[in-house]
């Protein structure tokens, strides 16, 4: 394996995701996880409400954000071509990747061409989505996450569980233990007397990562926005790890979903107001970096990388665009406000969603980007109570409940969808075929009262033999629910007897 060549530990293989109900079932049984999540989500949702209340024109900003994104999506071809021209004119190189495999191949080849075997990374959902770290490792390239939370996740051989705060499920004691046991095998070890104060932990991360920043020659990032008009890329962050990666290395490779383009530099005035307040509940995040190709100096004065590559990623986005109801998910600016208000997320945690996009947005984005073919993707549209809180807080007004219901219909009934650019008709998901068969059987029975009555009486007499779990296709239903108690007599018998009794009572009353 590559790890022996590199003389450093490789990134551990992570097991595949189970379906949502199974993962959620385990997660809600973990009291530490639930306490960590509850603390974190409640802290941030209260702060966010205050930050939003500061702006009297929040609704107008929200509407503008929605309209800018919708307009861009309607003319996505035009804006992507304009972006390509602007970035190229500013000294950058643009690559187009139809899917994850192509994006990974492009990035791997770009890194190998530099002669380097390690890269530093800015937290990026797009590179997680395509499994870039794993692809680079397979090519003998070590990818170091430099966001503190991503570092915690990576050192903990774990998966991120939140868009904004990937290690939200870990408390300070757990983080201390991860740093103490793992940092040494990756680089500078944690100090021997490391405590669990957040300040101490941040300092340990600072020292551990700084040596990587100072020697890194290649960086990989995503972007929050790409401005078509000017070719400007924008990254919002807090720690300065983004600035380190975007400024110090010689080569910068940014992998960005095609939906991140916005038409004009002016449009940033909307999103730079709504994104920080929605995500970290701050008026503005500590650091925002904007760069345009290689800049006016074309990289020659050492301010920023001497080579810039932009990889434009489709990977299911054009398929999502083809769905008129579902395409609004592409408006998402990854603020994570919907996660923090979601009652389901708060209890189940991000891992249960089985994708890099957890929470309500993940429940509509993942099944569209990946299709509903797998068990986890077919289950995601059901990972919600449809309470609507996610829609209320969304700074680009994505009607998540509407898309959830739309996707449930698709899972249950099948219908026309676009996969890999081709219009196809999908069949109902497997479990739902059984449900419909059960409904057909019920109709048959309900149309024949005699048969129904006989069956009901038989069931009542056999009630002590009631199993805890249903066999066959009904098993999935009882995996997460108790089978109801069977009454001593069928309802219709009970009702008939009750009516007879009332008649008798009334007769008796008249007699006395």
């Amino acid at each position, binding site marked *: 394996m590559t790890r022996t060549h590199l003389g450093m530990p490789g990134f551990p293989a992570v097991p595949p995701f189970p379906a949502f109900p199974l993962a959620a079932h385990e997660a809600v049984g973990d009291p530490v996880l639930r306490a*960590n999540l509850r603390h974190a989500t409640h802290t941030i949702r209260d702060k966010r409400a205050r930050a939003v209340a500061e702006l009297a024109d929040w609704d107008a900003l929200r*509407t503008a954000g929605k*309209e800018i994104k919708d307009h861009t999506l309607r003319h996505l071809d035009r804006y992507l071509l304009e972006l390509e021209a602007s970035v190229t004119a500013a000294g950058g190189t643009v690559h187009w990747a139809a899917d994850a495999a192509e994006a990974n191949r492009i990035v791997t080849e770009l890194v190998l061409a530099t002669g380097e075997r390690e890269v530093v990374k800015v937290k990026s959902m797009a590179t997680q989505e395509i499994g870039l770290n794993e692809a680079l490792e397979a090519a003998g390239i070590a990818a170091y996450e430099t966001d503190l939370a991503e570092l915690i996740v990576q050192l903990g051989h774990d998966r991120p569980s939140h868009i904004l705060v990937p290690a939200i499920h870990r408390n300070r004691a757990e983080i201390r233990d991860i740093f103490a046991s793992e940092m040494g095998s990756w680089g500078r070890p944690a100090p021997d007397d490391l405590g669990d104060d957040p300040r101490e932990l*941040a300092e340990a991360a600072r020292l551990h990562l*700084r040596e990587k920043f100072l020697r890194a020659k290649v960086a990989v990032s995503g972007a929050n926005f790409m401005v078509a008009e000017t070719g400007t890329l924008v990254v919002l962050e807090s720690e300065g790890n983004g600035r380190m990666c975007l400024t110090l290395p010689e080569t910068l490779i940014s992998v960005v979903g095609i939906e991140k383009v916005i038409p004009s530099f002016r449009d940033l005035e909307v999103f730079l107001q709504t994104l920080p307040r929605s995500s970290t509940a701050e008026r503005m995040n500590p*650091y925002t*970096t904007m760069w345009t190709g290689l800049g006016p100096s074309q990289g020659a004065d050492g301010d920023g990388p001497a080579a810039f590559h932009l990889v434009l990623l489709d990977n299911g986005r054009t398929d999502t665009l083809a769905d008129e109801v579902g395409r609004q998910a592409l408006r998402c600016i990854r603020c994570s406000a919907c996660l923090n208000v979601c009652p389901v997320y708060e209890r189940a945690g991000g891992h249960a969603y089985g994708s890099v996009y957890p929470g309500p947005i993940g429940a509509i984005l993942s099944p569209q980007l990946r299709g509903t073919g797998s068990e986890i993707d077919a289950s995601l549209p059901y990972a919600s109570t449809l309470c609507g809180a996610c829609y209320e807080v969304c700074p680009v007004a994505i009607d998540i409940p509407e898309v959830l219901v739309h996707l449930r219909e698709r899972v249950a009934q099948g219908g026309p969808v676009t996969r890999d650019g081709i219009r196809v008709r999908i069949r109902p998901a497997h479990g739902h075929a059984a449900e419909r068969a059960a409904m057909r059987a019920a109709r048959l029975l309900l149309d024949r009262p005699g048969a129904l009555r006989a069956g009901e009486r038989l069931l009542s007499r056999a009630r002590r033999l009631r199993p805890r779990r249903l066999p066959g296709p009904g098993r999935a239903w009882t995996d997460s629910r108790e089978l109801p108690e069977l009454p001593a007599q069928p309802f219709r018998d009970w009702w008939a007897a009750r009516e007879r009794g009332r008649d008798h009572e009334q007769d008796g009353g008249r007699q006395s």
Partner: protein
Amino acid sequence: MSSKDRILARIRRAVPEPGPGSAPEPAISRDYLPVHGTRAPAETVDLLAANLTEYRAKVHRVDEGGLAMLLMRLLAERGARTVLVPPGLPPYWLSAADPTRIHDRAASTARELEGVDSVVTGCALAIAETGTIVLDGGPDQGRRRITLIPDHHICVVRVPGQVVDSVPQALPRLDPSRPLTWISGPSATSDIELDRVEGVHGPRTLEVVLLGAQ
């Protein structure tokens, strides 16, 4: 077919251009506010100071005559022995300061810069409503890395001239072809139990000097 052509073709199939006779596309509604509230210039500067302070930047006010002494004092309090100087920093700013000047040269490596104690810069502008200073690599600000690697950054903002109220007022004054760095308080993280901790990778101490008639 190249991936570019494939992606563009998929987009055009997904969202066909509207045919002739279809309803004109609605304009984007921009009825949000260009600025939140009304303030006199001095109040805008006060708001900038308040918002910077809330995000744990240290704010100082001084007039032209007192600037050199203030910068000397801030560097001395920090115990700085070396200070990074952008090429176009007005020389009188540091005329009283003791630390050895380290000039921002393209050839200096990140490792060399790491040994420097402090950096003093100007800025392109500052935004009061968000408590943000914006650097654009101008001569009095230097390259992006010099305000990133040292642990102590002193930024001088000319008030009220360089201060705008809001984000919508800031963008038209900036040149997107320049590398832009927006800084709102010192480096911070909330990744551990959402407890805010200042200083992870960027400067852990940010001092903002509001320079103007007092």
